[in-house]
C-alpha cells in the first residue's frame, strides 16, 4: 500500500493502471489484488485529478453548520459539480465524508492541507489564492478546555511537540518507572484502573491485554488506533498533533507491558501532517533513548472509515483491502501477520502514563464508579463555541454544553457519542451524565464522546439520510445486510424526503434496521442500524409528515 501511495505521489497525485500493474509484479501479487486494494481506499486516485484537489466535508456535523452552502458556492465559482475536474486541470472538486474536524467546521481539504473554520467569504479567498498558485495558511483555532489536565494539558502549549518541553513537565518519567517494573505488574495496574476503551466500544483495556496468550513464541504487536473517523469525533488528533510524546510514552509503556517489540500507529491518511509530527516525535524519542525496547511505525491509512475496526485495520496494515475479519478468532490471539495483537485507541493509550506514574488509585479518583479517568469530549453542531474539552467521566452533559458556549437556537436533539449511537431528544438529556453507565441507562452510548448538538432548524429525515449515506459510502461491501441494507434504507429515506414515500416505508426502515442489528459481519451494521432506527422512531412524526400518499 505505501508503494501505491508513493506511485501516486510521484505521478501528480494520480495512480495509473500501469503503476498498479508494475507494483503488483514487484510484490508478486495478482493484478486484480492490487487493483482491488487501490479501488477500496478513497485516497487512491485512479482517475486523474487536478492540481488542487478540493474536498469538502459534507458529513453530518458539517451538514449541521452549512457545508452545503459552501459546496454550492465552490461549484458555482469553478463551474463544475462535485466529482469533476475543471477543464484547465487546475481543480478537482469532491465531497468527502467526515474529516474529523467537527470542532472547526466547515472544513475543506486541499490536497494534503486542511482549511478549517471556513465561511463562504474565506472559501472565495481560498480559491482565488489557489488560482494564483498559492496555498494560503489556514486558521484552525478552536475552543479548548482541559479540566483534568491529563490528556489535553499541553494542548495549548505550542512548544509541547518538542521532547524537551514535554519532559519539562514530567514527560517520560512514567516510562522510566514502567521499565523498572515487571510487565505483568503494569498490566495489573491498568486492569485495576479499569480504563475503558475510548475508541467507542468501551471495553476495559487491561482485560483486553490479559487475553494475550501466555508463553507464546510468536511476536506480539501493539497498534494505536488513530483512524479517528467516527463522525462527530475529533479528539485523538488533539493529542497527536499537539502532544505527540504523550501518545508515544503511552505506547512505549503499553508495548513494554504486553511485551511487544513493534508498535504501529494507524493514522487516517487525511492526517498527513499529523503523521509527520508523530514521525518527528518518534525520532526525537529514539534519539533521547526512550524507545530502546521498541520500534514504532506510523502507518498512514488511505481513506476508509471501516479501517477503524480492529480487524479491518490489521488487514489494512497487511496491505489488503480493509475488510473486517470474522471474529473469533480475536486479534489478541490471531492478529497482525497471524500474531497476537492488541489494538487500543489513542486516548486510551494516552491515559496509561498517568496510571503508571500516579497509580490506579489516583486514576480512579477521577470520574465516577465504573467510568474512571478523564475523557475528551468534542462538541460540534449547534453550539456557540464548539471545541474539545477534557472532563472527568460522569460530567453532566449540560456542563459540557455550557463550556461549548451553550446551544445555538432551540435544542432539538443531541447525539452524544459519535454518529453511531442512538440520538437523544432534548428532553432526554436533562439529567444526563457523560459516563458509560449513565449513557446506557439513557438508552444510548458514550461511544467516542463526540457530541453533536442539533437545533430545531434541522430536519431529522435529512439527518438520517446523511447518516445512512455516510455508512453506505463506508461499507466495505463484504456482507449482504450491510452492503444492500444501507442501499435499502437510503433509497427509502430519499423517497420519503422527495415526497414519494409511504408509511410502510417508515415501518420498513425500522424493521430493516432492527433485523440488521447484530446480523452483520462487523459492527458497521449496528453503527448505522441503531442510530437510524432511533432517529426514525423518536421523530416518527417528522417522517410521517413527509408522507403524501
Amino acid at each position, binding site marked *: 500500500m505505501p508503494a501505491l501511495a508513493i506511485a501516486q505521489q510521484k505521478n501528480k497525485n494520480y495512480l495509473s493502471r500501469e503503476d498498479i500493474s508494475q507494483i503488483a509484479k514487484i510484490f508478486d501479487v495478482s493484478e486484480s489484488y492490487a*487493483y482491488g486494494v487501490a479501488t477500496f481506499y478513497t485516497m487512491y486516485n485512479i482517475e486523474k485529478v487536478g492540481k488542487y484537489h478540493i474536498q469538502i466535508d459534507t458529513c453530518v456535523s458539517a451538514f449541521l453548520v452549512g457545508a452545503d452552502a459552501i459546496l454550492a458556492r465552490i461549484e458555482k465559482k469553478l463551474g463544475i459539480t462535485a466529482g469533476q475536474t475543471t477543464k484547465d486541470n487546475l481543480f478537482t472538486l469532491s465531497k468527502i465524508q467526515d474529516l474529523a474536524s467537527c470542532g472547526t467546521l466547515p472544513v475543506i481539504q486541499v490536497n494534503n492541507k486542511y482549511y478549517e473554520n471556513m465561511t463562504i467569504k474565506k472559501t472565495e479567498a481560498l480559491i482565488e489564492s489557489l488560482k494564483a498558485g498559492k496555498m494560503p495558511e489556514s486558521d484552525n483555532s478552536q475552543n479548548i478546555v482541559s479540566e483534568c489536565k491529563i490528556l489535553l494539558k499541553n494542548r495549548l502549549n505550542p512548544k509541547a511537540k518538542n521532547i524537551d518541553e514535554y519532559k519539562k513537565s514530567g514527560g517520560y518519567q512514567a516510562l522510566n518507572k514502567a521499565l523498572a517494573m515487571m510487565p505483568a505488574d503494569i498490566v495489573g495496574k491498568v486492569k485495576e484502573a479499569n480504563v475503558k476503551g475510548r475508541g467507542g466500544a468501551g471495553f476495559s483495556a487491561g482485560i483486553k491485554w490479559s487475553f494475550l496468550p501466555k508463553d507464546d513464541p510468536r511476536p506480539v504487536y501493539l497498534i494505536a488506533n488513530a483512524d479517528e473517523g467516527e463522525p462527530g469525533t475529533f479528539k485523538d488528533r488533539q493529542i497527536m498533533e499537539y502532544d505527540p510524546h504523550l501518545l508515544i510514552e503511552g505506547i512505549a509503556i503499553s508495548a513494554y507491558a504486553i511485551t511487544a517489540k513493534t508498535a504501529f500507529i494507524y493514522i487516517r491518511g487525511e492526517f498527513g501532517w499529523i503523521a509527520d509530527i508523530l514521525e518527528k516525535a518518534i525520532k526525537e524519542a529514539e534519539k533521547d533513548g526512550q524507545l530502546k525496547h521498541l520500534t514504532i511505525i506510523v502507518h498512514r491509512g488511505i481513506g476508509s472509515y471501516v479501517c477503524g475496526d480492529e480487524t479491518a485495520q490489521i488487514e489494512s496494515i497487511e496491505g489488503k483491502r480493509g475488510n473486517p475479519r470474522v471474529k473469533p478468532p480475536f486479534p489478541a490471539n490471531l492478529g497482525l501477520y497471524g500474531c497476537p495483537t492488541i489494538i487500543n485507541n489513542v486516548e486510551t493509550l494516552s491515559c496509561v502514563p498517568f496510571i503508571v506514574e500516579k497509580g490506579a488509585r489516583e486514576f480512579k479518583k477521577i470520574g465516577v464508579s465504573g467510568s474512571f479517568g478523564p475523557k475528551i469530549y468534542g462538541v460540534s453542531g449547534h453550539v456557540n463555541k464548539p471545541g474539545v474539552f477534557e472532563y472527568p467521566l460522569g460530567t453532566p452533559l449540560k456542563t459540557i454544553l455550557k463550556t461549548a458556549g451553550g446551544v445555538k437556537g432551540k435544542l432539538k436533539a443531541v447525539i452524544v457519542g459519535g454518529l453511531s449511537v442512538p440520538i437523544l431528544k432534548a428532553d432526554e438529556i436533562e439529567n444526563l451524565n457523560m459516563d458509560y453507565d449513565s449513557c446506557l441507562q439513557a438508552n444510548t452510548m458514550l461511544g467516542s464522546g463526540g457530541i453533536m448538538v442539533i437545533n430545531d432548524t434541522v430536519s431529522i429525515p435529512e439527518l438520517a439520510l446523511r447518516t445512512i449515506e455516510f455508512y453506505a459510502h463506508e461499507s466495505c461491501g463484504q456482507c449482504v*445486510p450491510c452492503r444492500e441494507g444501507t442501499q435499502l434504507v437510503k433509497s427509502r429515506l430519499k423517497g420519503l424526503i422527495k415526497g414519494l414515500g409511504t408509511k410502510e416505508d417508515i415501518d420498513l426502515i425500522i424493521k430493516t434496521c432492527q433485523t440488521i442489528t447484530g446480523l452483520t459481519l462487523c459492527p458497521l451494521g449496528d453503527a448505522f442500524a441503531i442510530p437510524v432506527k432511533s432517529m426514525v422512531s423518536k421523530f416518527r412524526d417528522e417522517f410521517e409528515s413527509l408522507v403524501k400518499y
Partner: protein
Amino acid sequence: MITKMIIDDKEVPFDQGQTILEVARANGIYIPSLCYHRKTGQASKCRICVVEVEGMRGLQTACSIQARENMKVVTTNDEILTARRLIVNLLLASGNHDCLACEANGVCELQEVAYKLGIEKPAFIIADKEKPEYDDSSEMIVRDIKRCIQCGRCIEGCNKTVVNEVLDFGYRGHETKVICDDDKIMGESSCVQCGECAQLCPVGAITDKKSIGKGRPWDLKKVRTTCPYCGVGCQLYLHVDENTNNVVKVTGYEGSLANDGALCVKGRYGYDFINSKERLTTPLIKENGKFRQASWEEAINFVASKFNSIKKESGSDAIAGLASAKVSNEENFAFQKFMRKEVGTNNVDHCARL
C-alpha cells in the same frame, strides 16, 4: 471420545474443528448458506446461515462458529427467519434475479433458499440500482454481473483452488464487484478459462457459455467419468441430454483425489468432439483411392482375410499394431492380446513416447 452437540433438539456427533454448518450438513439438517463452500471455506458474507447458539448473545453465523461439546443450536425461529428473509429480499431486490431464462435455474442456491423461505418475489425494490453489466467477451464463460451476490467463491476458487489469480474484489461498499485483473473484461484478461469460477458460483452470475439454453439441470443425466485429455485423470460429470444423445455440459467432480472438482479449459469445454458431425459412423473400405461405406461384416472379413494371408505369406512379424493411449485398459489389453495371440507378433506399441 465421541463428541456430540444438539441441533434442534437432535443429538448429533461432530469432529473437532467442524463448524456448526458442517455438522448440520453432515447430519442432514438444513441450514441455508450462500457463500460457504467446502472448497472455498467459510466467508461469513451472506449471513444467511445465522442460528441461535445457547449462551451466545444475538444470532451467530453457523459457518464461523466451531462446534463444542454439548453446544445447543436452534436453526429456525422467528428471529432467524426474519433475518434470512431480509437477506434474501435484499439480494433479490439489489440484482437481477429473474429465474426464467437463467442458466442456474434448478441449481441456483439463492433460488433454493427463496423457495425454502417461500419468497416468490422481493418484498421491496431498491430503486437506485443501475448495474446493467453482462460480460460475454470470454470464449467459454459468461458473467452476468447483475446476478452476482458477491459471495466471493469464484475469487477464492480462482486464487486458492486453481491458483490462476485472475479474479478479486474491486471497489468498495455497494460498488464492490468481482474484477478480472485491473477490471478488464474477462475475454481480455489473463483468465485461462478453466471454469472453476463457474463451477463454484452459487447463482447464475458465472456460467458456461456453451451450455446456455442447452438443457435444464433436471432434464440432464449426469454421468461421472474420467477426462479424455492429459494424464492427470480428472474426474468429471458429463451432462447428457438423453433425447438428443448429446453431451451439453461438463463439470468437475468435487471430492475426487486427482482434481477435486477442478478442470482445465480442454476438460471442461473441449467436449464438442463427442457430438461432432465429423465422427466416423460406418466402416469404410478404400477402393481406387476413395473410401466407400461398408458393412461391419464385410470390413471385418476383409481385414481378417488380409491379415491371415499376410501371416501366411510373410510371417506374423510382417504385421504390426499400434494400440492407443486414449482407449481403456481393457481395450489395450484386448489389442495386445489380439496382436500377440491372434496375429502372433510382439510388434505392438503405442505413442507413449510421443
